[in-house]
């Protein structure tokens, strides 16, 4: 096995990346981010919701529907962008009925339907959640209503995550295992990504320090195993798709994946800093702990955006060499 690193594959890939491809990468990255924020926001609310003051401070009441709407728009935008690219990179090709039909009738169309249905369910559930009332209900009726109210949102989140497994390499053999691992990876990622903004917001107001500290400490406890599972799933998927570790050095796909792993390591470092140093300091109301924690969460958000951009570049411009 040769271990020398040549950047030739990556440079060739960058040379072939035109403006149209850049647009596709941005639309894909925006879709990943908004869909994960919508799904993750819902999960955050289910796991950590319940305190009315904190719920208000998270901003999830508007964030989840806004993210779901943006994801829907970007999902639809990817359709003509893909048709335009297939036709050579022009707006005429983007609205060519034959190319649009070609894209829609395949796996991409099925993925669009799944993701679109899921996002609409998420959107509807987020709105209905606010409108629901429990006046005049018995205790058991209230319990049933609360479970029923969560169901469409959960189903929507499941459909959105499932749609990611509908296109690309997770459709290969063994499909059930590959798709399950990708679902595990995406579910964990959504939980992490969707929590960043609510955690940033609840750690701001001094009046909410105590309940916010409880949520931050609990998030750290839950996120540990979730992040470990999402990384284990990602490593196995990478090994399976690359058919070994050598293509990490010698293929464009592997080299972009290495960049993504490097950013992920930085992100894990920040997450560990938060978990073991900054959040305990915040809970103890140490001096400047609030500002340091919020800066660190904002940096996490920036690194997550970079990872999603690299992932979109990876999935849009290249494929595993195996």
């Amino acid at each position: 096995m040769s271990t020398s690193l040549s950047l030739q594959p990556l440079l060739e890939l960058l040379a072939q990346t035109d403006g149209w491809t850049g647009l596709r990468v941005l639309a894909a990255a925006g879709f990943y981010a908004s869909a994960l924020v919508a799904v993750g926001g819902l999960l955050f609310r289910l796991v950590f919701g319940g305190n009315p003051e904190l719920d208000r401070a998270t901003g999830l009441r508007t964030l989840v529907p806004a993210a779901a709407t943006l994801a829907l728009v970007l999902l639809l935008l990817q359709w003509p962008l893909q048709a335009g690219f297939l036709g050579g990179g022009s707006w005429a090709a983007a609205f060519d009925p034959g190319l649009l039909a070609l894209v829609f009738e395949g796996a991409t169309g099925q993925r669009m339907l799944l993701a679109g249905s899921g996002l609409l369910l998420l959107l509807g559930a987020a709105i209905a959640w606010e409108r629901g009332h429990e006046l005049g209900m018995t205790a058991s009726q209230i319990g049933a209503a609360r479970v029923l109210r969560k169901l469409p949102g959960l189903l929507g989140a499941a459909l959105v995550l499932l749609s990611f497994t509908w296109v690309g390499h997770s459709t290969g053999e063994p499909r059930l295992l590959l798709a399950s691992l990708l679902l595990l990876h995406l579910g964990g990622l959504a939980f992490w990504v969707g929590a960043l903004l609510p955690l940033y917001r609840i750690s701001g107001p001094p009046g909410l320090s105590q309940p916010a500290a409880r949520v931050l400490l609990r998030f750290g406890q839950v996120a540990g195993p979730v992040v470990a599972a999402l990384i284990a799933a990602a490593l196995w998927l990478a090994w399976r798709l690359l058919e070994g570790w050598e293509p990490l050095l010698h293929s464009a796909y592997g080299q972009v994946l290495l960049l993504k792993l490097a950013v992920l390591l930085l992100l894990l470092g920040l997450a560990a800093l938060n978990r073991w140093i900054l959040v305990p300091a915040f809970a103890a109301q140490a001096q400047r702990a609030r500002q340091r924690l919020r800066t660190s969460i904002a940096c996490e958000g920036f690194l997550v955006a970079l990872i999603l951009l690299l992932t979109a570049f990876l999935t849009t411009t290249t494929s595993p060499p195996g």
Partner: protein
Amino acid sequence: MNRLKTLLKIAPAALALHLLLATPHLHAHAQPEGSLPAHGSTVTGSPNRIAVWFDHPMRLTLFEVSGPRGVVPLSQGPGRDALTRFEASPATPLGPGKYTVRWRGLAADGHVMADEIYFTVR
């Protein structure tokens, strides 16, 4: 009530599992396997055929050859049907110079594929 709650909680997971298991067929991911002339090669005289082939069916949507005099007219364009090999002949012989073959297509798994192949005519 507890049974109903449990049922409602596992319903999305059960639906997802069903959808995964119920997928009618597996989508194969196509990779380019080779081209004529080969990538990076130098040929003496104009090639009669310019071709690209894949390990799984691909729906080619673009197959364009360009050289010192711009885009080269070809005997046929891709028909967007799923195929494992596509070839076309230059309408007029290629003069000396560097040429680029640019193709784009859609694999059965929904992956958009694209590549560029370079060759030189001496």
